[in-house]
């Protein structure tokens, strides 16, 4: 069994008003050194696969077909063995 830790983020060309709003809040904390806040999604999923390459293929397909919308989002993931 494998676990996929998936990150879905807005593409750099897409404005992220939510990230902007959070950045303003961070600035009002006094943390002026923080910039370029972008909000994304984190998804965990277990994958029953023969080997890591297989698990990677499954994760790739699920990301491409459902978890991320390629018009506005990018994705990345790590695969690790688990119980």
């Amino acid at each position, binding site marked *: 069994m494998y676990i996929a830790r998936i990150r879905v983020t807005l593409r750099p060309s897409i404005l992220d*008003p939510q990230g902007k709003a959070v950045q303003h809040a961070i600035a009002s904390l006094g943390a002026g050194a923080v910039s370029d806040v972008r909000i994304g999604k984190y998804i965990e999923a277990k994958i029953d696969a023969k080997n890591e390459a297989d698990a990677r293929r499954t994760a790739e397909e699920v990301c491409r077909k459902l*978890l991320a*919308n390629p018009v506005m989002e990018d994705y990345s993931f790590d695969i690790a063995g688990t119980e």
Partner: protein
Amino acid sequence: MKFGVVVFPGSNCDHDAWYACSKIMEQDAVFLWHKEADLKGVDAVILPGGFAYGDYLRCGAIARFSPVMKEVARFASSGGPVLGICNGFQVLLEAGLLPGVLLRNSSLRFVCKYIRIRVENAATRFTQRCVPGEVLSLPVAHGEGNYFTDPATLERLEGDGRIVFRYCDAAGAVTREANPNGSLAGIAGIINEAGNVLGMMPHPERAVDPVLRNTDGQKLFASLIGSFLSGEPVLVPARPGHDAVAG
């Protein structure tokens, strides 16, 4: 003419759409439950507003896997008219029946108010009862209506007259102030290449009853019905056990 209104878990404008078609426009209208892969021989499909599947993951992302959506896609590819309103527009985009995405409103706020849209293309079967440049007043109610697409697609939409509605002011000017959500090029509604699938954020079905004083939304329904009754062929998918209904 027979309308089919798709009902997803979380749809909340389904009854309004049914009411507009049956009680106001005096046509047949049936509900199409998302689990049923049967369009019941309808002549047009409406994907209503709401929050299908709670807007989980992304608006419309889960709804496109419903059994009914496979049939809707087949219906659309055979030329059947499909109107996606608000959340229905989001579902059409996620299903790949229209290009682009709807991002979070630039204000980050849910916008619920009357807006105006300018009819950019009055030659579609959804707008043929309007005149080009006509300004319609319709309500919007959404948090994700900020249309976005890549520059190449935008150019194609512009060039082919597929931007059917843009947000505008009372005089018909497309301005930043008149745009409720930050939508690219003021886009409020687009149509597919074949001209039979329209997605729009404003709610025509909420502006049909004379009791509510504003009946601008009737023009869309009247256009569809007019194009159907004038004999323009409206194809339905050939399914076993269903006779094809001719326009």
